């Protein structure tokens, strides 16, 4: 009688391990193994020994550093803009219901289903030189806007729009944890909108914001299509730079070095994400 539940617990543990075995093995094989291979391959050369020359080159090459710097600030700015743009929509959707809210939600989630190549070409048609915006402005006798196409702002605008849905979904799930009762209680005590947001809502969705930021950073760091099609030729973001070094310059060593450095930054943000998740779970218990 006593041993039966125990064995069930043991069996459950084993089948649980079996359930996660496939993804874990895939992760080892398709992610961790290539990372290790890249890391070792850029530092150890069979027959020649250890050398960190490619890393020394990267960090002493002004051109490479400028690309890394651009990637960092585009990533930072775009992540913040995404959260800033998604927050009002998320708040609206959390506290309103009805057909207009449903329409807003479907419009906000629409970019999720648009491939980034289409976003890029649509962007050029709309915001590009002599695009739809310019045509409309000219029609009402206003001067044309300077187009962000091929400017640093180009990929940022494109990336913000493209990443809005995921950020919105993450924030909405966080807002689900804010009880309507506590908001109403605060309102009954005379708290204004800003106070409710900063004192009641923000503390509850803090971990969601961190998760959203971390997710965005990971995706943005490796962004390729939009910076490639909408951004200036130079400086380049790390994605296009790595691709160009690998295939155009036929230089796998430096391309791999760039990839390892990029991965190191992403891993740091990954760590922040894992911490936030762990903290969030503790908070729930």
């Amino acid at each position, binding site marked *: 009688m006593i041993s039966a539940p125990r064995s069930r617990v043991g069996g459950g543990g084993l089948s649980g391990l079996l359930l996660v075995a496939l993804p874990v093995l895939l992760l080892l094989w398709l992610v961790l193994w290539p990372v290790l291979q890249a890391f070792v391959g850029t530092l150890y050369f069979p027959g020649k020994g250890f050398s960190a020359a490619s890393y020394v080159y990267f960090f002493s090459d002004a051109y490479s550093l400028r690309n890394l710097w651009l990637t960092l600030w585009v990533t930072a700015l775009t992540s913040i803009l995404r959260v800033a743009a998604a927050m009002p929509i998320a708040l609206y959707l959390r506290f309103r219901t009805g057909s207009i809210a449903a329409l807003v939600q479907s419009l906000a989630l629409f970019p999720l289903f648009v491939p980034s190549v289409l976003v890029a070409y649509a962007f050029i048609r709309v915001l590009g030189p002599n695009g739809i915006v310019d045509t409309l402005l000219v029609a009402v006798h206003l001067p044309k806007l300077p187009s962000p196409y*091929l400017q640093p702002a180009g990929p940022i605008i494109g990336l913000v729009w493209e990443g809005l849905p995921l950020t919105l979904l993450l924030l909405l799930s966080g807002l689900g944890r804010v009880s309507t009762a506590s908001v109403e209680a605060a309102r009954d005590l005379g708290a204004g909108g800003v106070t409710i947001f900063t004192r009641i809502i923000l503390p509850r969705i803090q971990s969601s914001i961190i998760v959203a930021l971390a997710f965005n950073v990971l995706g943005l760091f490796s962004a390729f299509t939009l910076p490639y099609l*909408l951004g*200036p030729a130079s400086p380049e973001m790390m994605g296009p730079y790595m691709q160009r070094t690998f295939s155009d*310059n036929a230089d796998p060593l430096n391309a791999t070095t760039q990839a390892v450095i990029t991965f190191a930054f992403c891993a740091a943000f990954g760590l922040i994400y894992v911490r936030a998740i762990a903290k969030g779970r503790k908070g729930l218990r």
Partner: protein
Amino acid sequence: MNRREFLMVSTAATLAATTRFASAATRLDMYTSSDANISDFFSNIIKPAFESANSGTELNVVIARPQAALDAVVQRALAALSAKADPQLDFIEQYDPLLPAGGIDAGLWTDFSKAGLKNYGTLNKLAIQTPYGLPYRGSQVLLAYDTTKLAKDKVPKTFADLVAWIKANPGQFIYNRPDKGGSGNNFVNRVVHEVSGRDPSKFKVDNFDQATADDVLGKAWAVLNDLAPSLYDKGAYTAGNTASLQLLAQGAVTMIPAWSDQALQAIAKGVLPETTGLVQLTDLALCGDFSKAVIPTNAAHRDDALKLADFLLSQEMQTAIIEKLGGFPAVDWSSLPKDLHDKYADVIPSSIPTFPQGKWTTAVQDGWYRNVAPNISRT
């Protein structure tokens, strides 16, 4: 018939059917890494024509983009050659037969001059650079411009005139990043030719040396940096051939370098307006090239691949290359109808300068990113 019998019978029938089809149809594996207009041309025009002319042969068009993907396939073929295995590759629509290094010496590529092709003799002699690659279509970079803003008689015809025009009309010219498309790349190559005495033969696949490159390319960067402030947006560069065409189509710029085939196709489809003009520089043309098809000697269906090679040089397919693709033929114009020659007189080249792949191209492209692209003033 119960369920089990039904399953057994239907499985047997399916097996019989698949093996029968497999034995009846020879599948010719053809690879391409060219732009979509070329892969579409093969899927929609060459495939049906070739299959109806050779019943029992199926042309399998495999798209291997980007170039690096095709390089991997060729490496596999080279490995298969030494292992005497099937390379699973019968025909590549466009590949440099000088690659991979040592490939020709190892006997990887078929020598077309000895392959007994019926139509080999009709080839344009300008086009044959090596017997290991079969030229079958050509294209050249030229200047496409908006005739509503720039009259046909005022269009620049020499490089010096072009530079003067660009500076006199700031913001009206753009070329794409040299590694992202041949139109911008060959514009940059034309600058390299200009500063080195307009002699394309100075640059060869095997004569790269750093000192000459530093000297010549340094001068080329000076010319390009001098032009940069007069380009669209004070020095912006599009991300590819089609992005340049799009800016021309939107009227944002007046002139761009463009591939002849892409420009002609764009005009035919209405992507570019009818008022688009095309012009080639007369002091030295912008670079162009013939696309060379290759066949590995160890291809499992080498005889059928040779049939396809011969078929591409037939009058019917060469005419299709002109009319449907906007390319120019690899065979001599004398073996094609005369009215075609008159219609496409604008793009028929008198000379086709080339620029070597390999180290020279890498030096030009990476050097451009480091020396020209960053010099942009946004004020």
